């Protein structure tokens, strides 16, 4: 089981702040995304969306998701 966390507008698209996906072995990010609704997987794969795995920024390219990982999808920020 991995946990996907959606920040900012990605939460609106997902309809939930996070989602648990069943994983029994390390799985390519692309394969994780295909299990999601198309509108969501497309938004998560957007060029401006950054990724953090277990609180560390990681590149999406070639990323493997492990069981028990928390994978956060971070759209452009706007603080202050």
């Amino acid at each position, binding site marked *: 089981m991995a946990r996907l966390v959606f920040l*900012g*507008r990605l939460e609106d698209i997902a309809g939930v702040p996070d989602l648990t996906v069943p994983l029994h072995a390390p799985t390519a990010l692309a394969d994780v995304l295909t299990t999601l609704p198309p509108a969501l997987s497309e938004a998560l794969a957007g060029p401006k969306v950054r990724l953090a795995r*277990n*609180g560390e920024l990681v590149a999406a390219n070639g990323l493997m998701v492990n069981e028990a990982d928390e994978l*956060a999808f971070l759209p452009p*920020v*706007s*603080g*202050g």
Partner: protein
Amino acid sequence: MADVRLALTPFDPAAEMTAFAAAHGGAGGIVSFLGQVRVGEGVTALELRHYEPLTLPGMIALAASTEARWPLAGLLMIHRSGVLHPGEPIVLVAAAARHRRDAFAAADFAMDHLKSEAWFWKREQVGAVWRWIEPRDQDYADLARWT
């Protein structure tokens, strides 16, 4: 050592500034930036969201790089998260320094980075509709001044 806080409930900028000024009485000059939810533009609420594993650590790293760049006597950085209402403070940055220019530059630098690099997502409610705020081109331009 900077005082960096992610505030999940309202904070009192005046009380924070008073404590900061008293703590850095040797500094001579303090520059502050206070951002508050605008009153009177139809925005009924503002929500700031953060991501626990990144947001406060990122603010702490920003404070450290600000302190590394200018000789400061003290640095205060408080950023709200949660639902805010018009007039409520969102962010307070204060830099105390012996030399005025250092305090101005440090507060300016910290704010530019908080605006467009810190891990916050902001949406505002107008009437019953919530709308996510995208960063403005100006924010990126402000940030690029420091590189």
